[in-house]
Structures are given as structure tokens and as C-alpha cells.
């Protein structure tokens, strides 16, 4: 069942809640503080429910993919089995004596032996592929940007990596520190400022109902 709400109603709710919460930061009024706290609490609950909805949606998508026999349906089967198994084991663990909560034996086992292991393995492979990409970086095309990138990567690696005993760093450590703390941080600051401004603009657009991601 698809429930359609009027765009005006949704817009009014979003705008009202946003203005009340924002106003609570500027006006130290008890009522506004209480409302703000209550709205934030509801938002946390909604976020938690959204996680559940996300999981269900993931299950639905992959079920459709598997039933239709779309390409990669085998991976969807693994995902569904993993989800159902983990969820089922977690639900059944208290009844089986494996403990309760997300720290039950089963979940812990899955977490330690599957999720952590696989994650670590992928992260490890990433190292090899990154090095290989750096190894062939200038073979395709040699532009100034690529050359600077390669040089900066070498300097950072040499500056950060342990050097054998007796091997001088040739000032690369200090250079690396300078690169990490001056140009990199400068770029970081610019990014953060842009992000901050974008967040403000996005918030205002939502408050003013210019963007309505919540409705049609």
C-alpha cells in the first residue's frame, strides 16, 4: 500500500520541525529546549527504524534479484543466507544457550571469523593493488599531475616508513611532515569549509522546502 501525502503537509512538517530545532539553539527557552530534545529523540528512533527498514529493503532487493535470476544472483543468495543466518542465529542464540544480545557466541564467532577476517584480508589486498597501480602509473600517460602524485607518494612513503639502520632519510621525513601538515592540511581545511557551507545550504534548502527529499 502506497500512502501518498500531500506535498504541503510533508513540507510543513519538515520545515516546522527544523525551525523549532534550529530556534532552540538560538533561543534559550525551556519549551524550545524540551521540544528540541524530544524531536531529536524521535529522530534517533527514526534512524534506528531506518536501519531496520534498510535491512529489509536489502533483503527484498536481493530476493527479487535471486528469483528473477538476474546476473549475480548467486551473490544475492549468499547475502540473503548471511543475513538470515546471522539474524536467525542471533535470535535463536538465547534459546540455544549461546548467550544473548549481539555479543552472543554465534555473533561473536561470525564477527571474528568472518567479518573481521574478510575485512582484514581485503584491506591487505588493497595494499598490493595500490602498489601495483603506483608501479604502472606513468606507463599509460605521463602528465604533470601524475608525476607530482607519484613523487608525493614516494616522499610520503619514505618519510613515514621505517628506514633501515644507517640509511639516511635525506630530509624526506621533514619533507613528508611538511607535505602532510602544510599543503595537505590546507587542502583539508578548504574541503572542510566547503563541506560546512554545503551543510548549511542544504539545511536551509530543506527548511525552506526548496529540497524535499522526503516526498514526491
Amino acid at each position, binding site marked *: 500500500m502506497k500512502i501518498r501525502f500531500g506535498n504541503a503537509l510533508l513540507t510543513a512538517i519538515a520545515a516546522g520541525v527544523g525551525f523549532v530545532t534550529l530556534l532552540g539553539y538560538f533561543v534559550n527557552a525551556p519549551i524550545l529546549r524540551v521540544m528540541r*530534545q524530544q524531536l*531529536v*529523540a524521535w*529522530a*534517533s528512533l*527514526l*534512524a*534506528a527504524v531506518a*536501519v531496520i527498514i534498510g535491512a529489509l529493503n536489502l533483503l527484498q532487493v536481493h530476493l527479487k534479484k535471486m528469483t528473477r535470476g538476474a546476473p549475480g544472483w548467486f551473490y544475492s543468495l549468499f547475502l540473503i543466507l548471511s543475513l538470515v543466518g546471522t539474524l536467525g542465529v542471533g535470535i535463536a542464540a538465547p534459546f540455544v544457550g549461546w*548467550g*544473548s*544480545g*549481539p*555479543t552472543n557466541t554465534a*555473533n*561473536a564467532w561470525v*564477527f*571474528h571469523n568472518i*567479518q*573481521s577476517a574478510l*575485512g*582484514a584480508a*581485503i*584491506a*591487505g589486498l588493497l*595494499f*598490493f593493488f595500490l*602498489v*601495483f597501480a*603506483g*608501479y*604502472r*602509473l*606513468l*606507463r599509460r600517460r*605521463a602528465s604533470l599531475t601524475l608525476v607530482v602524485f*607519484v613523487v608525493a*607518494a*614516494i616522499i610520503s*612513503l*619514505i618519510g*613515514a*616508513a*621505517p*628506514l*633501515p*639502520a644507517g640509511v639516511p632519510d635525506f630530509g624526506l621525513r621533514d619533507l613528508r611532515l611538511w607535505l*602532510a*601538515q602544510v599543503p*595537505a*592540511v590546507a*587542502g*583539508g*581545511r578548504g*574541503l*572542510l569549509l566547503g*563541506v560546512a557551507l554545503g551543510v548549511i545550504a542544504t539545511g536551509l534548502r530543506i527548511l525552506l522546502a526548496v529540497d524535499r527529499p522526503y516526498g514526491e
Partner: protein
Amino acid sequence: MAVIRCQACGKPNPDFLDVCQYCDARLKPLEAGPAPEAAPAGDVIRCQACGKPNPAFTEVCQFCDSPLKPQLFGFGETTSAEAGDQIRCQSCGRLNPPFAEACQYCEARLRPLQEIAGDETAGATAAPEPPGSPGGGPESGAQPGMEWMRRLSTEPSAEPDWMWTGAAGEEPEPAAAPSEETPDWMRPFGGEQPAQPAEPPGSPEGGPAMPDWMSSLGGEPTRMETAAPAEEVPDWLRSFGEPPSQPTPSAPAPSRDIPEWLRPPESSEAEAAAPLGETPDWLSTPAQPEAAPPAEEVLDWMRSSGGAPAQPAEAAPPGSPEGGPAFGAEPTSAAEMPDWLSALGGAPAQPEAALPAEEVPDWMRSSGGAPAEPVETAPPGSPEGGPAFGAEPTSAAEMPDWLSALGGAPAQPAEAAPAFGAEPTPAAEMPDWLSALGGAPAQPAEAAPAFGAEPTPAAEMPDWLSALGGAPADVGGFETRPEAAPADETPDWLRSMGISAPTEPVGAPPEAAEAAPDWLSGLGAPRFAAPAEPTSPFGAFTEIPAEAAPAAGEMPDWLSSLQPATPPEVPGAPEPAPASSLFGAMPSPFAAEETPTPLVPPAATAGLALGEMPTWLQSMRPVDVQPSRVPPEVDNYEEKVGILAGMRGVLQAEPAIAKPHKSEVPVQKLEVSEAEAAQATLLAGVLKAEAEEARPVSKRRLQIALPVERWLVFAALALAVIFPWFFAAGFFPAPTTIARETNAAFELVEGLPTDKPVLVAFDYDPAQRGELDPAAQAVIFHLMRRGVSLAGVSTHPAGAGVGQDIFNELALGLKNAYGVSYTYGVNYINLGYIPGGPVGLLQFATNPRSLFNTDFSGAMRVWDAQSAPEMSPVYGLSDFSLIVLVSSTPDAIRAWIEQTQSFAAAAPVVAVVSAGADPLVRPYYEANPPQIKGMVTGIVGAAQYEQRAGLPGGGPASNRWDAIGGGVLAAVILIIAGNLLGALARMTVLRARKR
């Protein structure tokens, strides 16, 4: 296929062609084909020109465009030509039907006028066929070719509408003495029997009968007299020979067939021309003035010139002999008849009907066209009155000169005003142009000869006619007899022009026969010698050579005034119509492509002065046309294949217009921008490269496939990591220096109070545990070693589990290392996962108790003092002594800082981040005031922190330092080597390409 070589150009032609395809000369002699009637009935008609068969329904030969059926001048229908020998044109040599008077191809006369007149005369003497009877055959001496005419005259029903006989079936009235009343040239139409002249030499024996009007043009009264009976002569011609003395008007014939303009007038003269009842009105004599057509039926030009009927018409239908003249019909009165008409022969004799003198053009008046003086009330055309147009003038005075000169003017001189063309009595009356042509009439009292009739005296001949040739034989276009009238018979006006009788035999083909228009050729045009100078009976409008001008005394004033001072020299061929001619600028519809044959022999124009061209005419003078710059199209295409091979003029299967060709107009220069030009160049290069022959990839000695290269790199890295781990421990010394931010973090942890818990946020996935676990463990172990309570949270779903593991491991290690028991729930607790991202952080920052009731396992109540006494004093973030944020991404650090800054002012923040997040987290550390008090970055930071903290066993980072060193060193070496080698290879390839 056989080839016929053209005798003219010598080029080969297929044998099936009759005409050379290159020069259009005949390849095969003309063969007289069978008579049209001999052709297969209903299917094929063989062309008489080329001899090729054509469908019966076609009228024009498909091959040579020659008419398949005999064409008769002036008649839209062809008659069934009687069987007979075909006539070969003496001009072009082509065959023509026996009944044709003029050649179908060159329009030259096939037979002399005398012959036609004789035929007509012979036909006239034949017993007329009763009306309604089908047309008879060649009988009674009528020529076979004139059967159709005879039929017309006898069979009103068979006549075409436009040739209403009017008096069909009426017996021709016995004509009076032709010499007295009817001009010879008109006599045959009126049934008169002029004296039979001898056959003109050269005329084909037994040739086809010539129409009356044509035979009458020959000026042979005998022929005209022997013309077909009146009922056989078309109405429109009848009036020419209609004797004015015919008293009884015939009954009005229904004007059912002949158009009004051809209907003869319903007058006595028309009746008198009963034998010529078919005479059209414009030629017929107006019988009764009261029968004049309504005024509206007469054109204005006629009315203004005197053609308007002065009297109302009677009941007689117009066009009928009794009725008034219809359009073209003879006006019943002088007022009705146009001057030119009346001058021709129907000058009204009625003074009250006569036009006022001022209305009559001078030229007509002077020529006698208008009544110069009041005459009797006899209706025009009546015997008493002036001769009607085309009617036989009653007297020589009435007969136009040219008419009388042509065919025997009536011997009765009449005091009536001469008709048009008649000899003007006084010279003063002659229009200037006419007088200029021929001077004063020599014999004003002489009646104009009948049209076509033999002018007895030369004086009777119209001036223009006499000027043409003096004797009737000399009149242009008219048939002349050998015994042409003596010079004194030449009309004065003509004589004044100095035109003498031609000496050449009549009937001889003229030199410029092709130039003669139809009407002129019909008049026997090229009978006179081609004058060297262009002459014209209308001398006032043409430039008459001086030598051709008549004697000064004889030239009319108007003509002499027009005579050019210096006549142009005429080449051998006659010149075209001179510009000074009134009609010089107008192309003659009858003129052939060749120069028109002048009507007046050069001798006749001698002495004439060039006329002055009016200014208005000069403006109409044609301007020399500039030669076209466009080259004439030359079709040289010769078919080379198929059955049409060898032929020229064949339509190409693919017309040239359809063939793609480059425009002659240069294409405008395109306006191309730089980007477009570059794109075009690129595209051209790509296309060129594709078009180039594909070159095989050069084989290199050390050509290694990419997967092998990849495996080699992987192997090198693995060796670099594994070898130091097992075989080169201590190869890479531990760091001896510590980073500033790392030292700050250490100092901060080292100075924390132990009564407040420390919040540790594990915001990273298990995948980042390899890099962050050493740093996190170093900091947490340091905290645990100090005995600080720890509370773990995570905004990441898997972070809580990571935190749980770290807490457990470190607790065990601490116990093992230091024998300090770190109990869960007492010394450390894991709160779990904070959902909602920033919102959850905000809520947690606002009121942590509202977010968690139990720990991550769900078995312990977090805020119970008994279960978790370290958490009991915590009500907000400020109740924590330190917040340690462990994250692999800067977003989590930013979110923590943004949401909890205002609520955790008293709690410092230490960030444990990966090396990649360091640039984006350091601004918070380097801010003023700094938002982060310390940082521990990656493995290097962990190793430094471990060294600084002096953890036992060095710590995980210290333990992995050799492997880390080997791997990083190998990575550096591989990256440098690989890029250097790649650059060298690229340079080599570029050099090879350049070469």
C-alpha cells in the same frame, strides 16, 4: 548493323536512319509513299516525307514531324484527297498531296495561280450540284482538289460552321458582263465567266483545283471566271467576285455554320454573289443598309472608320445576304463600312451613310476608300452604290486599284468613290502614304479591277499593286499571266513606285520562296523576282530603295515623303522587314526564318525615298540583342550500348542533371572555430590511422604480460613483508622520535584523573583494524594501565564489536602483563552502537542516559550503580575525563566534534586516526583553540606512542615494524622502478613513432 555513310558529312549512320544524325542530311532519297488512302485501313498511315508508318490516329509523323494528312490552308479539316499523283514541291522537293496549293513544308506554292484560276474556272463551269447533295467528285472540269470547296458550296450541311454558305444551293446569278461590273478576280466567285485565259506556263497540267480565292488572286479573270460555281465557292470568297449588279438578293440562308464574321451580307450584292453565297461578310457586299447588324456587333474600329451601321438592321439575320453585315460583314452603308473595307470594294455610295470626311483616314480617302464625294443612296455594295468590301466594284472607280489591277477591273468607270485600293480620282485625295507610294493616280476614273481579275488597263490596277509589278502579273503574290497587262495597266500608285512587270515567267519558283508568308504565297507571292531591295506594296511603311522608287512624278506624296534619302544596300538576299516599317519591329507570324520576300521588285522601288520613322516607332525599334554568353548546348552523347548504339541524340539513361558533380560555384569558406578545427584534425588523424595498414605489435624481448607482471609485484611485496618478519627482525629500528601530536596525546592520557571514565568511540570497521588496532590498543592500554574506567561506544554498526574485542584483549593483556584485573562492567563497559549518526551523537551528547539503558551485550544495566558503578556519575559528556575518537575516516571525527563540542567542553578529545585521515583531522588539532588535544596517526604514530608509553613487548606496532618497513620500502622501490621503466619505454615508443 549496316552502316550508311552520309554523303554530306561522310560520317557513318545506321542503316535504319533516313536522316544523318550529324548533319541532318537525308541518307536515302525521298520516296513518294502511297496515298494516305492506300495505307492499311485503320492502322497505319505512311508518311509522305520519310515513308515511315505511323498510327492512323496521328496527324503528324512521329519521325519527321511532317503532317500525315494533307493540310489545306485556312481550313481545319482535311478533305478526302482524291486519288492522284502527288505534287512535288519545286522549292524543297518534298511531296505534297495533289490537292494542296502550297507545300506543306516550305509553304511554297505548288501550282501557279493561273492554274488555280483555271481550275476554278473549270469548276465554275461545271454544273452546280444540288444543295444537300454530297460533294461531287472531280467533275465538270473542277479540279479534284477543289472538291471540298465545291461541296461546301453545294452542301450547306456539310460546311463547317465557320464557313456558312449563306446562299447555298442558290444558283449563281448570271453575271453581267464581267468587264463592265465585276472585276475579273472576283468574277468567278460571282459566277461570272470571265474570259478564259490561257494556261499559265509552268502550271501543272491537270493539277488540283485551286480554291477560287486563290485562283482569283492570280488575276486571271479567265480562271476566276471559270471558277467553280458560286455555290461551290466559300462564302467568304464569294463576295470577291460578287457582281454588284445582282439584283435579287437571295433568301437569307440560315447562318448556322459560318461564323458571323464570315457571313456574307444580306444585300443584293450578296445576293448577286449568290453563286458566291459563301462569301464571308467581310468580303461580301452589304446588301441593305437596314440589314446592318446592330451597332454592337460592329467593332469599334469599324464603326469609327465608317463601319458602324447607320441604319438599323432588319429582320434579316446578320450575315445573310439580306441582312446587315455581321462582324466582318459588309456594312450596309458607308457609315457602317470601315474605310478600309469600303475602299476595298464596298465603299458606300450613300452620302448620308458615308462617314464624314473627317472620319475617314486620309490614306483611305486618298486612295478612294472613303467616298470622296457624296454618292447616291445606293447601299454600299449595291450595284448602285460603291462596291462593298470584297464586292465587285460597279465601276472602275469603285474597284480598288489593287483589285482592279489584279483581275480585270470592270470596264465601267464609276464616279463612285473608289474603294480601298481603288484608284483615287484626284491626287489630292490620296493619302500621303499611298500617294507617296505611287504618286497621283494616273487614271482616277478607272475602276479598280476585281480581286484576282485581270486588270484591263494598267491604270485600273491599284497603285500598290501596280507598283509591285505594273501589270497584273507583276503584282506581288498574285498570279499573273504571261500576257501580263501592259505597263499602262499598272496602277498608278504602283506605277509611281516604279515597279515594273516582272519579266520572269509566271510560275517560276521565286528565289526567296521560303520567305513568303502564307498569305502572300497564297497570293502567288514569289512570282515576282526577288527584289534586291525590300519592297512592299505598303511602301509607306517600308524602306524603298531609291532605285526602286517610281518616278518622282508618280509617287504619292505621302510615299515620297517617306522615302529614305539613302536607301540601304540590300545584299543578294532580301533583307528582313526594315526597321522603318510600321511592322518592322513586329515579327511576322507568317514570315519564315529566312528573310521575307519583298512584295515589290527592286525596280519598282527605285526612286523612293526613305520614309522618316516616327519617333514613337523609333522607340519600338528592336535593339540589337547581345549575343548570348551561354554557349549553345551541344549534345555529343553517342550511345554505345544496346540497340541504340551508334546513335546520337539519344536520351541518356542517367541524365546529366542526375549525375553527381561538383558545383561550379566555389563553396563558401567555412567558418570553423578552433575547437572544431582541432576536432576535425583529430578525426582526420583517426581516420588516417585507421586507413593505414595495421602494424603488428613489435615483439619485445622482455615482453611480459600484465598478469605476470602483477604477480611479480605481488610476490615482491609479499617477500618484503614476510622476510623481515621471520628473517630480519630488527632490520628496521624502532622509531626514536615521536610526533608532537602523539606526544600530546600521551601526555594527556598520562595526566588524566582516574575518577572519571573515559569515553572511547570505536568508529571503524574490522577492515581497518590492521592499521587502527595498534594505535587504539596503545592508547587504551595506556589508559587501562593507569586504571581509568573506560566506556566504549560506536556510531558504526560494527564498531561496537571492534571495541568489545579491543577491550577484552587489552584487559587480558593487562592482566597478564601487569596482573591488574580489569573487569567488565566495573572497569570498562561497552555501551554499544549509537544509531542515527549525527543526530544520535547529538542525543547522546545531550543526555547519554536517554540513549542507553543496557550495554552492548544487553545484560547489564549501564546506569545502575551496582552493575556499572563507573557510569553512575555520568549524566553527560562533560562527566567524561577524556573522549578518544578512533576512526579511519575524518567524517566521524568531524561529526563527533561538531555535535559534542558544546556539550563536552570540559572533556578533551584525542583522535586516533589512520594516515589517510590525518590531513583532514589535523586542522582540528591545529585550530586555535584546538578542538583535538592530541593525535595518534597510523602505524607510525602507534609505534611512537608505544615507545613513548613504554608498553611491554613493544606493542603490536613495534612488533610489526620490520614487516611494515619491508613492505613500505618494497612499495617505494617498486613504484619508482616501475614508473622509471614505464617512462623509458614510452620514450622509446615515441622515438620509434617519430622515426
